[in-house]
């Protein structure tokens, strides 16, 4: 007969203490139904019964609940935080899912079937069999204009989005151009105003007619919204101030890319700085390709 302590150790060792993907099946069904509604009404924020997760709000609980509801045994998961695979948030979420789902994880964009992301869309174009899961802090694009949920819900119902145009116009009056550079508001399928989560506006064009399904989860606010593949997503602008994305004067210091989103990194206390790709996987791939090319020319 096994002693209590032996049994306790055996329990500790097994990952069977949790249901597959942490959430219970009834919660998953509820979230899955909400995702399907979100897909049917692109850009509309579907309320759902958010659950307490084993990490604080702000760490991506919305995205984690979505991933937990869609992941299966055959999925390969990639997690990025501001484009990087190796930052705390990305590493801990990847570990969480490899523990509670026992699934394969990757850092390579093209190998992943599900990519959970915080505030970036990978540089490499996504394919039709991939799903991108966004972590969203504040899902309501109108929240800073109108703090009352009862009112913003009404504004969405009535398609009353003029105040958002006014906000962008105020940017122009103040700065001479639209200064909003992240969480740049979009209209989905010509109807709902949507906050694409705090991705840089550099990534907004990737939302339009995307090959991949994109789903957004806000844990604290308990909202899910989706953009199906091949859906029109329009970034708000004016005829005389058309939407434009960020550009940099210099290329990435590491891989030399001219067409990626760059992070500014301070490198000493003299004000020296460098610009590097925020998408670590893409940057490393570019560097490897250059190394390979040099290698070929030498040999």
């Amino acid at each position, binding site marked *: 007969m096994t002693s209590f302590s032996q049994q306790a150790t055996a329990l500790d060792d097994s990952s069977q203490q949790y249901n597959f993907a942490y959430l219970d099946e009834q919660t998953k069904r509820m979230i899955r139904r909400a995702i399907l509604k979100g897909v049917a009404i692109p850009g509309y924020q579907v309320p759902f019964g958010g659950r307490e997760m084993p990490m604080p709000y702000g760490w991506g609980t919305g995205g984690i609940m979505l991933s937990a509801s*869609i992941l299966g045994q055959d999925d390969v998961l990639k997690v990025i935080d501001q484009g990087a695979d190796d930052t705390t948030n990305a590493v801990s979420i990847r570990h969480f899912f490899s523990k509670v789902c026992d699934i394969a994880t990757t850092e390579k964009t093209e190998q992943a079937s599900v990519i959970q992301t915080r505030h970036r869309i990978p540089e490499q174009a996504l394919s039709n069999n991939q799903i991108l899961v966004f972590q969203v802090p504040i899902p309501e694009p109108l929240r800073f204009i109108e703090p009352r949920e009862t009112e913003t819900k*009404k504004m969405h119902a009535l398609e009353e989005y003029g105040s958002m145009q006014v906000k962008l116009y105020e940017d122009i009056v103040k700065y001479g151009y639209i200064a909003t550079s992240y969480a740049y508001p979009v209209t989905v399928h010509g109807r709902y105003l949507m906050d694409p989560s705090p991705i840089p506006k550099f990534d907004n064009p990737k939302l339009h007619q995307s090959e991949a399904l994109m789903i957004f989860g806000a844990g604290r606010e308990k909202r899910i919204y989706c953009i*199906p593949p091949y859906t029109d997503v329009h970034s708000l602008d004016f005829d005389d101030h058309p939407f434009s994305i960020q550009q940099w004067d210099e290329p990435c210091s590491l891989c030399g890319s001219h067409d990626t989103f760059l992070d500014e990194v301070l490198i000493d206390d003299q004000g020296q700085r460098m610009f590097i790709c925020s998408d670590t996987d893409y940057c490393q791939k570019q560097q490897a390709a250059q190394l390979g090319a040099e290698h070929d020319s030498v040999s």
Partner: protein
Amino acid sequence: MQHIESGFIDGIHNAQQCFRYILKALSEPGTEVTLNKHPGFSPLNAATSQIIMSLCDQQTGVYLSSALAESRDGLEHAWHNLAFHNGVSSTPMEQADYLVVSGTEDLNLQSIKAGTDASPELSASVLVQTTGFDKGPRFRLSGPGIKHSVELQLGDLSDNLVDYLLKPSHRYPLGIDFMFCHQQSLVAISRTTKLELISCM
């Protein structure tokens, strides 16, 4: 006498696999997917049964149309099994979240939940058991989830169902999402999908 059949062999993973196919079908309307994890509880076909088993429980109202079975008792078998495996219970048509109907029956789609302007998600999904995807009127589909357009057939459909698909009486974002099921095959039509009639046969 009640006869309970086995449900999903691997409940957790089969439900997840079915959900991913349903998600694929609804996010890309017109795409045919195959649900092959369960043979179904007659008179529901395999695809219909698996959708209900993957998505429904005691929190959802389910309606099974009497047109699916030849006699009134014909639905008992499906109800017993769905109640046993998922805890679903019968709900009147007007309050149901998931409805299973026959494609050829005379449907009153106006009485089905279509959501409200403030909460369009409070709408029903209609699972249509159809006669196959190689007969019936030919449609051209376009809209979100469809690259350019696709052409397909949804089986023999009643006139008012065809009328609703071509010209929904609910104004977007209100509306009904359809899932057409034949044997193991599922084709979904979202409320955002625009249908044009190409030919009647």
